């Protein structure tokens, strides 16, 4: 039985001798090769995803003005940024916006900052002895701010449901425009290429894992919010709905707009398309078996976004989704993705090249994620509250 360590694999990467495949390539290989053969031949498998990830944002430090201000209300290009972090630190969330201009949000601020554009900053403070200034209006850019780093509390969902709409009314959701009477179905993960579907029990991904984040090297820093290990799994042990997630971090100044894109989903709001790639070491046969999983072996749930409580209408494989049609309630329904497989493949290929060139090494997680984690829901205690 072959077992490899992180150190052995990194040694091979440094020597330019590591065998690296994308998850798509290893899925193909798995049709004919056994897990034992795969672990002997392959050292690292690159996985990737490129999709809208609403729980994303950037931490920015503006630097101090003279005289200084303790910023207690902050607008960047009119978009509200968080004011509760010391004097000149802020967090711009991807979904933040000025309600009068909902199609331009924090995601756009982040993209424009990355592109090197000049943005308008306005900030207000009450004026204190040490921070006497009460207002500042100025411009900022990637060059003028001290730090600008992406810190995304929930990214890279392990699987996600398919969205349909059984009602008679067209609805607008974060899963795209859903036509009435089950006339379309949308889905969002990259299936066999998706990071957390290739390591469903998180054997190799944890705190400290070095990743590809929007074109730069980033890190996994924590389990993502709503991290859930209790979702039902299929016969291969892969969750059949949204389960585990990642919190990630990386230097915005080093990223590329090719892999970070601001978006506005009609009548929903702004969000950020984030590109994530994770290299997974083929440590043993168990990992080889996990990594060679194919679209026809990964299932997900079809949910009705038109009905209260989003009831489940069925379960399909990614191979069915990719075929262009699925069957829901006996009806043939046209499918379309809302996340980019073309971009995800580009990321997996790029990460593979970095590994082959010895520019990227694997990290053994500093700490693994919890084995048991479930979700709480929000209980309503006041029935009288005014909207």
């Amino acid at each position, binding site marked *: 039985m072959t077992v490899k360590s992180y150190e052995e694999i990194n040694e091979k990467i440094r020597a330019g001798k590591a065998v690296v495949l994308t998850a798509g390539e290893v899925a193909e290989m798995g049709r004919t090769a056994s897990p034992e053969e795969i672990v002997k031949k392959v050292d690292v498998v690159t996985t990737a995803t*490129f*999709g*809208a990830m609403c729980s994303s944002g950037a931490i920015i430090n503006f630097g101090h003005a003279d005289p200084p201000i303790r910023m207690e209300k902050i607008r960047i290009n009119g978009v509200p940024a968080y004011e509760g972090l010391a004097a000149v630190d802020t967090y711009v969330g991807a979904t933040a916006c000025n309600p009068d201009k909902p*199609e331009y949000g924090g995601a756009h601020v982040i993209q424009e900052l990355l592109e090197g554009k000049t943005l308008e900053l306005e900030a207000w403070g009450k004026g204190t002895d040490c921070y006497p200034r009460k207002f500042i209006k100025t411009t900022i850019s990637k060059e003028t701010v001290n730090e600008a780093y992406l810190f995304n509390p929930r990214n890279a969902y392990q699987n996600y449901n398919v969205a349909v709409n059984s009602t008679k009314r067209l609805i607008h959701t974060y899963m*795209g*425009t*859903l*036509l009435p009477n089950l*006339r*379309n179905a*949308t889905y969002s993960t990259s299936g066999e290429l998706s990071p957390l579907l290739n390591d469903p029990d998180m054997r190799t991904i944890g705190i400290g894992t070095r990743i590809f984040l929007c074109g730069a090297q980033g890190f996994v820093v924590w389990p993502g919010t709503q991290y859930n290990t209790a979702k039902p799994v299929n016969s291969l042990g892969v969750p059949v709905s949204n389960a585990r997630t990642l919190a990630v971090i990386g230097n915005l100044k080093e990223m590329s707009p090719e892999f970070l*894109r601001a*978006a*506005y*989903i*009609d*009548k929903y709001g702004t*969000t950020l*398309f984030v590109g994530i790639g994770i290299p997974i070491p083929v440590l043993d046969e168990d990992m080889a078996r996990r990594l060679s999983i194919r679209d026809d072996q990964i299932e997900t749930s079809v949910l009705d976004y038109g009905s209260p409580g989003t009831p489940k209408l069925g379960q399909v494989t990614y191979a069915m989704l*990719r075929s*262009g049609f699925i069957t829901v309630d006996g009806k043939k329904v046209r499918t*379309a*993705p*809302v*996340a*980019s*497989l*073309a*971009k995800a*493949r580009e990321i997996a290929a790029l990460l593979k090249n970095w590994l082959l060139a010895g520019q990227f090494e694997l990290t053994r997680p500093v700490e693994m994620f919890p084995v048991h984690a479930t979700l709480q829901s929000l209980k309503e205690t006041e029935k009288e509250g005014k909207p």
Partner: protein
Amino acid sequence: MIIKRFILNFPPDSGDKPLSYHLVKDYDIRINILKAEVFPGKRGSLLLELQGTASNIEKGIAYLTSQNVEVEPLEKRIRFQEEKCIDCGNCVAVCFAGALTLSAPDWKLQFDKSQCVVCELCVPACPLHLFDINFQ
């Protein structure tokens, strides 16, 4: 010579009249059928591109109208900023005409403009706002 596009809606009983024959023969119009949705015994619709002189096209349209065919000129076209596309598929989800498609092997967006019926659903559906309407 001009080229114009029209959507034709026929009543159920007009299916077997040789309408296109008359357009070609009597008005010297070249017809390119871009899309046809004809259900036997029901209403049907056609997306046509007509090529001919302006006066002949006008006469041809008058003839069709006299045959109870509703004729709607398509003066708008969808424009698309291809270089910014991320191939996400949000527009494909709403394009029932099949003009926008995304499929194996490369999963890059294909836009077949000749299939577009200018329903405009893709305009708000694209999260990057890459479509707009061009009036001609």
